[in-house]
């Protein structure tokens, strides 16, 4: 198990990589953008992005804006 900070909230998960984490947390959609520890992780790289205890993950999505 790893403890990760996902969008500011602590999660205990088994996922070894970012793609697995998205799947485990139910995130779907081609419009999602991800970053790990302040570094963008492009869609094709998510399965190779191995996660470590304490990693900070941001999952962003299109929203209204001015």
């Amino acid at each position, binding site marked *: 198990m790893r403890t990760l900070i996902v*969008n*500011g909230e602590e999660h205990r998960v088994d996922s070894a990589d970012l793609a697995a984490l998205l799947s485990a*947390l*139910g*995130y*779907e*959609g081609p*419009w*999602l*953008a*991800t*970053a790990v520890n*302040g*570094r*963008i992780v*492009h*869609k094709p790289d998510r399965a190779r992005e191995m996660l470590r205890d304490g990693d900070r993950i*941001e*999952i*962003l*999505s*299109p*929203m*209204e*804006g*001015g």
Partner: protein
Amino acid sequence: MLSLYGVPLRSRLLLGTARYPSPAILARAIEASRAQVVTVSLRRESAGGATGGTFLESIASPGVRILPNTAGCHGVSEAVLTARMAREVFSTNWVKLEVIGHHGTLQPDVFALVEAARILTQEGFEVFPYTTGDLVVAEKLVEAGCRVLMPWCAPIGSAAGPTDPAALRAMRAHFPDVPLIVDAGIGRPSHAAAVMELGFDAVLLNTAVAAAADPVSMARAFADAVEAGRAGFSAGLLEPRDMAVPSTPLIGKAVFS
């Protein structure tokens, strides 16, 4: 025709997508505004992706281009990372670069803005910087690679209108060949017409439409105001003067006494 980073646009009104009463009213307001560019943001997704997908559907239209923003970012690294993520999500090099420096006025941190603009243009972004009316900052942004400038005319959401027309006039005179878009502070259609009469190339607004009692009608009113202001500028406006000038010719006037 207006051209922003090589993209020709018939409409000179750019519309924000925040604070509308419903997605349906937003979609109708975009249509009524005749805008070809709408701004969007990126936020933390809490519903597994569903929220973002629903929102994208509500603004999707073949004639509408998306301008992602970095709204709410407070430093260079945060703004740059958000821009990179937005480029991936929206498959566009366009980014409205906001780096907020003051909580009360939402005034941009112009030092961080210039630095972020430099980094992003080097990465191939086409940056639309939200800036103040300061000419020196504007020069630095152009040097950093910005080919569009977006000065405020009043603080975001204030609806105060052009509080310093002299600054806008100076910017127009100083950058005759750079597309200038007034971003932030427009409250009513007459404000939009006024800045277009100053020779600005376009207007970007949000709250004035979204928070109106009837956003769809207000969107149409702004579309008309922007066109009227532009037409007035193009047709050649008279300069105001202090004394009267008779509009009817005096030659041939009857003499009765």
